[in-house]
């Protein structure tokens, strides 16, 4: 959507601000927007702060997308890798810039190469220009913390631990994990799914889906040849498990005395109600993960071409912050109908897959 249209959306919505909430804006919203568009750099920054405040107060999703409109657009891949030197200070020391030859530890090369693979996947398949559609720089920090058993997206960059050598190896080892983390950035700039409950599980699932597709695209693998695993090879050989998650068979990725059994359900009847992990965002993501896998297998060929396209349109154009599984099912069904035709094989595959994980499509029209 052109950002000027987004402004129109905001202007229309602003008529519905609850009059009972005493919010006063000294500078009218449309003037802030005009300054962002035409003002000097300093004026733009101040106008932007004003606009963020108003948008935060109203809980809007559009503000992050608008943010990019005040910065220049780049059409080039621009990666920077930092080394936290086993501290938790971000971003750390710069170790490799875009275009520089490989240097430093293997984890530096992996973070550099696989973030490039992810950028190219989004560019080639969906014509997307980086995380924010405006060429956002891809910053990664490796060697984060001491024996750190995690990788995460902090809202502005990717961060990777080395693992403790007991349970986990370094987190840059797996291309789909890097695709997963970068996709959290894409989600942040698009549907902005809340990181809680079913919306959070969808947020996680989109990262798993596109993380897996990044790997499949890099390997030029057809759906039936892919492993549909997330984080294969991250566990040390002391752990009984093949990966963090299986999209094909949620709940089957590991079963180990130290870390327990993979708790993911693959069907709504086994949905896990929990307060931990932000309401089980990494647990219940197994349900939409399996739905995507089933569609991809049903449609055959390269999973990014049809199933991936449906999911991408849903993420970037239709889903909202608080969307739940039912909404995601309805929307992907509707998108499949729009793109491939009503009652097409593709639309029927979407319906069948959601049905197989316990979600009946409710037609919106």
């Amino acid at each position, binding site marked *: 959507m052109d950002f000027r249209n987004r402004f129109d959306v905001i202007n229309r919505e602003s008529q519905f601000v609850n009059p009972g909430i005493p919010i006063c804006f000294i500078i009218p919203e449309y003037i802030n927007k005009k300054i962002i568009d035409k003002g000097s750099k300093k004026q733009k920054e101040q106008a932007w702060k004003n606009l963020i405040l108003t948008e935060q107060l109203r809980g809007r999703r559009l503000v*992050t997308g608008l943010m990019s409109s005040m910065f220049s657009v780049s059409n080039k891949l621009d990666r920077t890798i930092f080394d936290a030197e086993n501290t938790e200070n971000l971003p750390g020391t710069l170790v490799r810039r875009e275009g520089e030859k490989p240097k430093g530890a293997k984890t530096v090369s992996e973070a550099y190469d696989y973030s490039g693979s992810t950028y190219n996947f989004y560019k080639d398949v969906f014509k997307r220009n980086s995380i924010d559609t405006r060429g956002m720089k891809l910053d990664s920090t490796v060697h984060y913390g001491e024996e750190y*058993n*995690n*990788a*995460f*997206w*902090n*809202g*502005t960059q990717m961060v990777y631990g080395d693992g403790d050598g007991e349970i*986990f190896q370094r*987190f840059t080892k797996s291309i789909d*994990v890097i695709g*997963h*983390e970068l996709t*959290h*950035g894409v*989600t*942040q*700039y698009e549907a*902005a799914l809340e*990181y809680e409950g079913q919306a959070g599980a969808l*947020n*996680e699932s989109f*990262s798993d889906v596109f993380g897996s597709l990044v790997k499949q695209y890099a390997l030029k693998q057809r759906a039936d040849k892919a492993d549909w695993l997330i*984080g294969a090879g*991250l566990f040390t050989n002391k752990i009984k498990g093949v990966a*963090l*998650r299986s999209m094909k068979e949620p709940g089957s990725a590991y079963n180990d005395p*130290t*870390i*327990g059994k993979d*708790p993911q359900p693959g069907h709504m009847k086994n949905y896990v109600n929990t307060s*931990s*992990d*932000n309401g089980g*965002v*990494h*647990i219940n993501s197994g349900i939409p993960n399996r739905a995507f896998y089933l569609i991809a297998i049903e449609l055959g060929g390269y999973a990014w071409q049809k199933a991936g396209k449906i999911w991408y349109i849903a993420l970037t154009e239709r889903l909202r912050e608080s969307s739940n599984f039912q909404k995601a099912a309805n929307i992907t069904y509707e998108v499949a109908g729009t793109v491939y035709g009503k009652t097409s094989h593709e639309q029927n595959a979407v319906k069948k897959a959601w049905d197989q994980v316990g979600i009946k499509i409710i037609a919106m029209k």
Partner: protein
Amino acid sequence: MRITVERSGGLAGIRISKEMDAKDLPSALIRTAKKIAEDKKVFLIIMKSPPRGAADHFTYKISIQDGTNLRVVECNQYNIDDDLKSLVKYIEKNSKYE
């Protein structure tokens, strides 16, 4: 006094629970645990929101049982207090998995 640290979330989403008796802690960390246990104002600290768009971060639930007195603190990697973080790290490193 027993301290239980439950960590959830992270990319892997693996829930880990570790427990330790306060007598097995270094003296500085015993003081931290006692401070939390005795602070009448602290019962449950609800997690503040992580940065916008952030994902795959760790969340923590720290329970301190002192006789019949139970204190529970919930936080995440972005808002955990430095003293509490030292306590959590020590227990994570030096206690077996529950």
